């Protein structure tokens, strides 16, 4: 009990961030038309790819002769990047289809 209380006290800021983020996440999503469910899932999927920052830190703190950590970290950075880049590109492709009108989809990838 005491350890729990002292933990809460020493991590109060993080606790605030966590609780407010939970409400924010719920609030942001609550009214979304069902046609957007799949792109939204995909977009959120790309956002949790921010885990890549953790894998960069792992590799950046590893000493150059610790091969096991380097190998694991290397793999982690690769899969993390796949999550981020693939996630954003796939979401963009999905949302491309939602444009009305008949303009060529491939042209305006960067414009809007």
């Amino acid at each position, binding site marked *: 009990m005491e350890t729990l209380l002292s933990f809460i006290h020493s991590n109060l800021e993080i606790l605030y961030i966590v609780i407010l983020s939970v409400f*924010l996440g719920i609030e942001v999503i609550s*009214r979304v038309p069902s*046609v957007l469910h799949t792109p939204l899932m995909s977009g959120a999927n790309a956002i949790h790819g921010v885990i890549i920052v953790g894998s960069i830190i792992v590799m950046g703190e590893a000493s150059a002769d610790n091969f096991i950590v380097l190998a694991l*970290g290397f793999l*982690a950075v690769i899969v*993390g990047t796949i999550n981020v880049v693939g996630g954003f590109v*796939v979401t963009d492709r999905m949302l491309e289809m939602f444009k009305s009108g008949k303009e060529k989809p491939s042209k305006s990838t960067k414009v809007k």
Partner: protein
Amino acid sequence: MEASILAICYLIGSVSFIIGLKMLSHPAKARRGNLVSAAGMAIAILGTLILYRPAGHALNNLIWIVSAIIIGTVIGATAARRVKMTAMPEMVSMFNGMGGLCAALISIVELGRVANDHSDMHVLSILAGMVIGSVSFTGSMIAYGKLQGKIKDHAFKGQHLVNLFVLLFIVIIGTVIITSNGTFSALIFYSMLGLSVVYGILFVLPIGGADMPVVISLLNSFTGIATACAGFLYNNQVMLTGGILVGSAGAILTILMCKAMNRSLMNVLIGSFGNTGTGAIHSVTQQGSSKEISLGDAAMVMGYAQKVLIVPGYGLAVAQAQHVCNELGKLLQNNGVIVKYAIHPVAGRMPGHMNVLLAEADVSYDDLLELESANEEFGSTDVVLILGANDVVNPAALDDPSSPIYGMPILEVGKAKLVIVNKRSMRPGYAGIENELFFKPNTSMLFGDAKTVLHELVNLVKEL
């Protein structure tokens, strides 16, 4: 100095995730929202690469890190560009699994360093990250395999009990590790890892392939939580906020998706237990759970579709809605949607009824499709709007020999991606028989008088 700039980078990243997610839930802004989050992500990653100072000096192994990022970018971008639109859900599942794997790998590395750091809470967040990340990884891979059709549904009696035991065991091992003050053996840690991997497989394996989108959304939420665990470990705000945001948004989205299918999450997750996998899906459809679509959603899917086929029936004639029907068709055509009318020979109450009716409303003759050509077109159609037709689209005519209308040629609307059925009520049609079409997963009901509904749709499409 560097640390302060990095903190600002992370702040920008967090805010851009929130704004991006918000914009993603509006059709008109969704695409820009995605770009906003991507830009925030780029700032967070570049900031870490350039400004992160672990012990007063720049990151070690920078060449390796950058080359890993390049490899990952090439693989991710190529996969995302090459994938067919129909295979999108499994691609998302694959990317989600990669995120989970990344979280699990980070935890494995970090636990090795825990000997110097006895904080229970740090060990807990490492273990949580590892368990959730591995479950998300293997679960996503199974979901991917199911959507590809490579993995069939497997369920055995008492599977939920086995799952529960595996989960309990993971919790027990976790407690042992945390209370051991860093003196646990590597073996016990790896057994925990192994159990998590197995749990991910067992968790997804019995769930029906049709429910995979819901499962992927749930696992997406899991990976978010695993990310937040790592964020706590490194005291890194952008990982913490990004992870929690996705965790909670993903959970809500999962529930919304279940609602759209008119089912509860529990029903999706354990509905298949006890029964054999595929049987469960059938029983659900036969119990007669049809789902409704709102006018707003209907207007949106049609407004943003490539091709819409309208199937007029007796209901349209009764409501005298042919003029407003034409108005909707013209409006959609002006928006660049291909609109055609699929005319069943016996739609309405007499052969040719519909052609007359639509011609009266000035529908171009070229836009009318006869039975055979319409059936060829349904496969490439995004939305079929059925206006008061029933028996002419009843699949029982094809596959139920006991049905009174068995053998009647029908409009095979089920081949289209989405079928919207406008009727006044769930009452059976002229032939007095139930229509299985209304309970199909890609069918949505839009109740109301055809004329009123079409008027509303015209107004809503104008606003898009």
